[in-house]
């Protein structure tokens, strides 16, 4: 498209090899996996293979994978699915969660759950002391994302699990942004459920998975026929699932090279941003290597993004889902970032196809926009 895409956290292009694997399942191997005939069995085999790939990538058994239509559905299923089977008590959800965790949490609060949120420090990390207090007593469920989609800050999920285990609290983590950018091992994390989405890892949109611990049960949200062991009804999106499987396999295969590459690119990027006077949110925290969330004093985020867009760079202001709104990000609010700075927030998220040359061009464009916007602010 002639643009330089720097919004990989919003979505990613489907990898060519993922697409080639998916292709036959639209027109040629089109069977319904529940059909008992040959045509259906081919679809079923493909789904089983994909399930194995996803399981390997996360370090679990295939029967711990539930395929869904994406990250939002996986998060909805985790929260509502767990809540449906345990007595109503306290639900702890961090204030920096994606809407697809926050909003279901509010729904559960409507149904009588006591919704509590831990504090978040100025680096964007959930406060573990707060957590320790909230996870005692009558607490049933906690959800904390593994990496934040806006700041990229990695949350101490394994520590939270240890706190939770003392009181028998179920732990869910939204790993939609983390998976593919950092190592994700289900057993090392120790969580009871974990969400991933295809379209953040160079797989197709419209497909994701919820990984659950063995022995843990959920109430299904989509009821109907007995797909996914009765946990998620609906004719399987075979092509999508095949795509997700291959995307997961590639995540593991490419982890090292991608990590190195992203670190190099973002190192250069952030040096450049700071040289121009930009403030990077969550700078001191441990972050995934592709995300840079920053602002310039007295420069409005959406205006800067529009200028950058004019110059051929696709960036985001806040998360894609809320990019139509003009309120500042609740994540920055929770971190205590003052409004005048939060309003300038821009997110650049890099990916496999980002190059150092792109970064240099971006920095040059950023310099141009920032200078011109500062000048016009000065003149106003």
């Amino acid at each position, binding site marked *: 498209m002639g643009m330089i895409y720097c919004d990989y956290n919003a979505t990613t292009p489907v990898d060519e090899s993922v697409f080639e694997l998916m292709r036959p399942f639209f*027109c040629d191997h089109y069977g319904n996996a529940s059909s008992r005939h040959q045509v*259906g069995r081919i679809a079923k085999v493909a789904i089983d293979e994909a399930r194995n790939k996803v399981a390997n990538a996360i370090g679990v058994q295939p029967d711990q994978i539930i395929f869904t239509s994406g990250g939002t559905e996986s998060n909805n299923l985790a929260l509502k699915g767990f809540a449906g089977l345990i007595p109503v008590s306290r639900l702890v959800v961090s204030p920096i969660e994606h809407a697809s965790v926050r909003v279901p949490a509010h729904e559960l609060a409507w149904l009588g759950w006591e919704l509590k949120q831990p504090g978040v420090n100025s680096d964007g990390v959930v406060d573990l002391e707060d957590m320790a207090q909230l996870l005692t007593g009558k607490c049933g469920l906690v959800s904390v994302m593994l990496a934040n989609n806006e700041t990229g800050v990695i949350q101490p999920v394994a520590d939270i699990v240890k706190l939770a285990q003392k009181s028998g609290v179920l732990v869910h983590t939204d790993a939609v942004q983390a998976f593919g950018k950092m190592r994700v091992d289900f057993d090392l994390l120790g969580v009871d459920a974990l969400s991933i989405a295809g379209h953040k890892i160079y797989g197709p949109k419209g497909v994701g998975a919820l990984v659950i611990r063995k022995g843990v049960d959920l109430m299904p949200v989509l009821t109907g026929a007995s797909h996914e062991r009765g946990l998620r009804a609906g004719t399987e999106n075979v092509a999508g699932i095949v795509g997700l499987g291959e995307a997961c396999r590639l995540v593991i295969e490419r982890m090292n090279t991608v990590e190195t590459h992203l670190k190099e690119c973002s190192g250069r990027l952030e040096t450049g941003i700071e040289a121009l006077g930009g403030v990077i949110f969550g700078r001191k925290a441990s972050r995934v290597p592709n995300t840079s969330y920053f602002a310039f004093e007295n420069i409005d985020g959406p205006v800067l993004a529009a200028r950058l867009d004019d110059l051929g760079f*696709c960036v985001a202001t806040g998360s894609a889902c809320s990019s139509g709104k003009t309120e500042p990000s609740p994540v920055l609010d929770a971190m205590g970032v003052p409004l005048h700075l939060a309003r300038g927030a821009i997110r650049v998220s890099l990916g496999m196809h980002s190059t150092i040359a792109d970064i240099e061009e971006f920095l040059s464009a950023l310099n141009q926009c920032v200078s011109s916007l500062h000048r016009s602010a000065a003149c106003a």
Partner: protein
Amino acid sequence: MEQNTVNLPIYLDYSATTPVDPRVASKMIPYLTEYFGNPASRSHVYGWTAEKAVENARNEVAMLVRCDPREIIWTSGATESNNLAIKGAAHFYKSKGRHLVTEKTEHKAVLDTMRELEREGFEVTYLDVEENGLVSVDTFRSALRPDTILASVMLVNNEIGVIQPIYELGEICCQQGVLLHVDAAQATGKVEIDLQSLQVDLMSFSAHKTYGPKGIGALYVRRKPRVRLEGQMHGGGHERGLRSGTLATHQIVGMGEAFRLAREEMGVENERVRYLRDRLLAGLVQIEETYINGDLIKRVPHNLNVSFNFVEGESLIMAIKDLAVSSGSACTSASLEPSYVLRALGRNDELAHSSIRFSIGRFTTEAEIDFTIDLIRKKIGRLREMSPLWEMFKEGIDLNQVQWSAH
């Protein structure tokens, strides 16, 4: 000129799923790798391109069923649409009443959802159908109560292909102030759907039954008068807050194109399919003791559901492995129970068990139909030779009078 050779297995299971039409696939594919933007991204052209494609597709869906595009919500499929419609409406309107009405031959996505609502304290009436598979308008009318808030009746049945009297049911619901939900997953591209004249409040659609991709569907939610729903998938507020989740552009483009083709080609295609189905029917009724399940007139031309007496269902499926067909609906074919739809028609277990659903589609050829007729004749003959029940029938024994020694 139609080809005379056939490729095995012959696919006659279009009601279970359909191949994506190559024209649909080529329209979809650029949105996977090239125009891959998130349609919710407001800040760049990748997002805008994707959003435009989504809105075009929404128009296409709306045009096929003659509604306003703002009345179409994207979902991950008909199962989700059914869940959203039924639970969403029941939860929203529960202060007005807690009684729901449906009928016994609905897809499991409706029946199971109704059962879940029963567990929540709603009361559900499951209507019987007539022997021809149709809901009686009078029975339906008498089932409605002052505290009924929602009825759900499918437009076309997936197993027997019968077309329910939705126009009449809609009028009744409108008069009584009851919301009507219709599962139209099997109907698009097969019957005219005119939401300007049907008094329907909610309608579920599936792409993969109409030569579109799997994993995408839609729900029609009437605006005038406005129907309210409690969303079931919460998050970023997509689809006007009714269904959150990043929109899968390529899937939506596929569904839009599939529905456009359906609108443009349905008339001609139905005639061709009807011809093929009638040919198949003529060939099969020559076999003794075959029974057609479901009304023959009020039925889509694509479906033929036949029971073969005195032959066991599983051995029949094994015998015809050169055909990809269904015995019972695809979703429930893993279980050993006979089809609940056929039982609801009053078929006994054996006839329900020994039924085959043939569903014809866009790519079915005359040669395939002729091969099928031949194969069925041969295999039924062979299985009946092996069948003690057929032997007894031929000897004039009334099997209903026999004392069986079941173990």
